[in-house]
């Protein structure tokens, strides 16, 4: 059980420690004039040299919009919001405001990369590859929850192929133990990028006779029960995802994606937190940092509270012969059937 801030908006019980913390910090919170009760979406207020909180978001994506809206509802201070458009003026203005802001909030990987290097603290969301030491909210669920959900959907899954680049290799290594704890084997294929990933997958799943002869045995891909796509920005791109989904169709290998957006795109399943939860957790982190900047460890938790959702593409599942009748009625499951 995790603690919740007083204004987190979640209907969950407050722990005694958190309550004590709230009692201690509440007077200070009220004594800070800058953190008034005029929370809201970035309008009004007395003019200042720079915004107290600057939110920069990646444009044109629904998940970013939903996270931003949830953040607006939970954030207790006035903040300024800039959407990174295609115009260079937006980027220049964002950089200019970032220099004078007290706290920076980045929603989306491009926004995070834009703000890297600023003097103020950066709090991120929807960024799969944050810089080390950054504070933010991760969307993807821990590997053990992912593998458990896969096991629930397909109990006979034992061998999971994980493709990783150098940048995401540590995650695969960390997930290997989780898979083993569930009686599964995680096969790691290290590649350097998207093109090598495609070639590696093709050689695994679609080998030529020459390649078979050279390997001296049946294709190893025949023993793979699923492909796990980690949140590896160096590796995953449109072509890799397209090829993996092609393998899912041609070889009947389910694809476990990193986010629900990839499930919308065609992957069989993913386990992650909904954007609303991400936005609320992001707002809680910002509130805490503004209240007590000296105790950043209090907000170092990178996952939203609660359990993540298991998002399943019903169309893909049916093609793979997976029954979803029970899953439709389980709490925390979200079946996409369209």
């Amino acid at each position: 059980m995790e603690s919740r801030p007083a204004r987190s908006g979640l209907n969950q019980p407050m722990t005694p420690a958190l309550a004590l913390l709230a009692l201690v910090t509440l007077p200070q919170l009220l004594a800070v004039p800058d953190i008034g009760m005029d929370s809201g979406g970035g309008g009004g207020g007395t003019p200042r040299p720079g915004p107290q909180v600057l939110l920069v978001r990646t444009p044109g994506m629904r998940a970013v919009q939903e996270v931003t809206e949830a953040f607006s509802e939970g954030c207790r201070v006035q903040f300024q919001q800039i959407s990174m458009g295609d115009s260079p003026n937006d980027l220049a203005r964002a950089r200019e405001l970032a220099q004078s802001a007290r706290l920076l909030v980045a929603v989306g990987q491009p926004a995070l990369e834009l703000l890297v290097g600023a003097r103020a603290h950066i709090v991120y969301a929807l960024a799969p590859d944050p810089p080390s030491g950054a504070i933010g909210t991760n969307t993807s669920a821990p590997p053990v929850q992912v593998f458990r959900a896969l096991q629930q959907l397909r109990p006979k899954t034992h061998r999971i192929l994980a493709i990783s680049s150098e940048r995401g290799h540590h995650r695969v290594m960390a997930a290997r133990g989780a898979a083993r704890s569930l009686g599964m084997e995680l096969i790691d294929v290290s590649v350097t990028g998207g093109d090598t990933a495609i070639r590696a997958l093709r050689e695994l799943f679609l080998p030529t006779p020459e390649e078979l002869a050279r390997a001296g045995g049946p294709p190893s891909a025949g023993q793979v029960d699923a492909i796990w796509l980690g949140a590896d920005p160096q590796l995953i791109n449109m072509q890799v995802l397209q090829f993996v989904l092609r393998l899912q169709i041609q070889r009947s290998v389910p694809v476990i994606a990193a986010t629900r957006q990839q499930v919308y795109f065609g992957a069989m399943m993913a386990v992650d937190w909904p954007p609303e939860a991400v936005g609320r957790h992001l707002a809680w982190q910002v509130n805490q940092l503004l209240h007590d900047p000296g105790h950043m460890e209090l907000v170092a938790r990178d996952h939203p509270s609660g359990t993540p959702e298991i998002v399943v593409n019903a169309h893909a599942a049916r093609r793979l012969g997976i029954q979803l009748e029970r899953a439709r009625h389980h709490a925390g499951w979200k079946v996409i059937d369209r």
Partner: protein
Amino acid sequence: MNDPRADAGPSAVPQEGVQAATEPPAPTGHPNKSDSSPTEPEQRTPAPDLSTGPAPAASAAPSTPAAPAGLASGADSAEPTAVDAASDGHPAVPAVPPEDDPAAAGSVGVEKTTPSAGTGTRQTSSGRTAAVGAEPAQTTSSAPSASSKDPGAAVSTSSRQPVVRPDSLSVRDTLPLAQPQGLASRLRDRSTLDIADETGESPLAAFLSPASLLEQSGEVSGWGSLLMRQRSSFFRQVFLWLLAISLLMSVGSGAIYYSRQLTFVQEDREQRAELLLGYLATQSELGAFAGDRVLLEGPVRRMADLQDVIYVAVYDGSGRELIKTGTRSGQPQPDPSPGLINELLRRARQETEVVQPRRGDLFLQSVSRLRHQVQNDKLNCLDLYAPIVISERGTAGVTAFLYPSDRSGHDRVVGVARVGLSLASANDRLNEVARWGAGLGLLLLVLGATAAYFIAGRISVPILELARGADEIRNGNLHPRIHVNRSDELGMLAESFTRMAERLRETMSALSRLNRDLESEVKRRTRQIRLAYAFTSVLNSPIDRSDEVIDAADLTVMLDQALAALVEATGTKGGGVFLVDDNNPDGELLVRAASGVSTHTLGPAPSLRTFLDQRPKNPDGSPVALTEAVQVVGRRLLVPLVFRNHPLGLLVLMLSSEEMPEPALVEFMRQAAAQLAIAVSNARAYTRVTQLASELRQRNEALAAQRDQVRAQRDQLAEQRNQLEEQRNQLAAQSIQLRIQRNQLREVNRLKSEFLANVSHELRTPLNAIMGYSELIHDQIYGPISVDAQDAIAGVLASSANLLRLINQILDLSRIEAGRMEVYFERLDLHALCTAVIREAEAMGRDRPYRVQLNCPHDLFVQTDSVKLQQILTNLIANAIKFTSQGAVVVEAYDGDARDDSVYISVKDTGIGIRAEHLELIFEEFRQVDGSSTRRYGGTGLGLAIARRLAEMLGATLTVESTFGVGSTFTIRLPRTPPLRNAHRSRGREGDSNPALSMSDPDIPRLLLAAGAADMSLADAAMRHHTPLPLPNPRTANSPQGSSILHNDPTPVPTHATDEPSAPSPPVNPTTSTKGI
């Protein structure tokens, strides 16, 4: 010279024809040449086509073997027939060209001989016959026999028409009407060519001739067939035009069809190339991105299996060949040009970096923009290249989490796709299209030619028939025979032609009748106009006598003459004019003129009122206008003479019969009567005007006399005005003089007052000392004195007292005149005042046998100065006592009437009285009636003057009524309330001792002038001009106007001093006189 095109100059056609017509003897060209030259430009087009057929006929030409074959057919028409350029109205020209003059057979000879052959033949059957046939002597049957070479022409010229010699006829003689050069004439011009075609035995020409068709169909026959044959060039022209149009349409449609198909094939090939390249690039995206040949095998194989694809190849992003196929023929795929792949990659990367393609359009834009193609003639294919571009942004959902760290570009070029697209199928299709286009064009041409043949026949034959009918009509044959058995528009046109001819006949007949009627009508109207002119001249004749006075005799003469002209113009037996008597408008009509008949024949004078009452009625029941009231009674035509709706009389004409006159005659008579009425009215008006002019002249003379009188009066008035002006100037000068005198008097008066005041003061001071010491002596203060001394001293005292009183009075008078006398108004009991004054004055009359009586009510109050009033009353009572030795002195005070808010106080005595002429003297200073009174009664002569001045200060008036020897009555009229202006008057008098001149100086002459001009008094003038007139000065009261003393007593006025008080007063008629102040 042998080239027919050289002879066919279109510009030379009309000019040469005219020139040839004006030079009859000149040779007119070679007949062969004449046939070869069309007269119209458009004829040149079909001529070569037709000339190709009858080439053998050219050999039949008697001369000019070098002439074109097509032109040789006209050789038969080159006979020297009479040529008159009929259609142009030119004189006949001998058409015999010298054979040794080939130059003459050029452009000139063509136009002269070509129409001659045809028109000469034609005109013998139409126009020439109509014009010349009536004079056979001028025609000749010896036509040149050269026409016998032409069977057709020979038949027409020899059997039907004589040939007119050119020298026997002129244009004017043979062609009374100019012949228009229309379609028919132009068609006739083609006849030579037609005949030449027939004689040339051209199969096509013979086939194209509608004459044969018409003959076969039976529509025309006989000479009509011959005419059709001669005029079939029109058919040929129509046919050739339609054929040319058909050919043009067929060729054009074939070309358009082929062009469109070629475009379609090219566009299809472009689309096919883009499609193939796009498909290959899309399918090769993963393979190119991964650099995996195995992933490319599938799409490359599928692409290579397509029928029109010769070879396929894919290159990676570095230009390395990933996969390629051989050609279909088993040959190896040709290598691309060196550096081409790298160049394409470079261009594609530049495009993706510079131009940001929109998401979703990337594929199509890259293929269409960056596609490159090269024609490979060896393999008969297109060598197509296109870049393989992948999007690294991808779908939104993916990008949200998986945005690559490399943000150098959104799109990436990962390779190049190459396709060899065969052109064989496209070429085969184009060949097929060409074949179909040619066949279609040929088919259209055949169909068009067939349709043109029939359409030309359908059009030309009826038109030629109509042209023939038109020729007949033009030549005077109004019964043309037009055989057009059609139900379409041409048939309707033919029927219209026939109806037009019938209508023309009717019109001509009607025109003849109308012409005859018109001539007779013109004659009749001319006579009427002439007579009417004479009638009008007669009516106007009196007006011309401008200087003479017209009289009744002149009017009668005018009426006689006008009536005579009218009778002659109308052809009646006679007539008369009855007019109303000027002196008796309601009386019977009087005969004023008669013509042709006696007054007895005219009958009794009709009653104008009866005649007008019996005038006809309008349809609505109202009587017709007076001018319309024309009646026929027996043989008499009665026409009223009305001028401006006023009946003047009647015009009576004796008709030759009792029949009703023609309406034209009635209308003419009505108008003549109107003119006659105007003339009568004018004559009468002229007479009246003459009389009025005479009267006016007399009145003008009288007015001139009056004007002279007025002018004289005006001069007199001007003189009087000048006199008045002089008087006014004199008055102004007098006014100035008076003002100067007034100022002088004012200054003198002031000096006098000052002198009196000073003298009085200087006198009274020692007098007081004298009186004081005298009184001390008389009272024996200084010791006892004798009785005589006391008497003497008493005398001194009495004299001093008198002197002191005199001095005081002088001082009072001086004070009053100097304006230093103050007035204090208060409420005063008049009875008490009078009682006090009487009591004080009784001391003076202790020696009198009477006592002063007082009649005053106790409640009589007045607002005045008590001291001044007391002083006035004291003076008056003292005077009354002084001059009344016996009798009584009565003081009476009483109210005025209701209109007069004043109080009157009168002092009445029975003293010596005052003469009337002395009444004004008693109020002047230092004046008494005479000096003796002063000596007798004492006094200074200032008492009444002071009393008057004081009364004026109080706003009162002091008047006196006296009868010499009887007594006097002084009356004070005292206002009950003092007037406010009193003080002003006192002050005014202080500043202006002469109130008569108190007006402003400019007012006086103005009032004087106004009074003099209006003969009124000065007071009236002042009232009229709102100028206040000053009160009269008492000093001027002795003037006749200012004096109010009326005294009829002629006896001299005794003075108080001289009249004895005890002496009985002489009996006089007491006359009351009033002295107004």
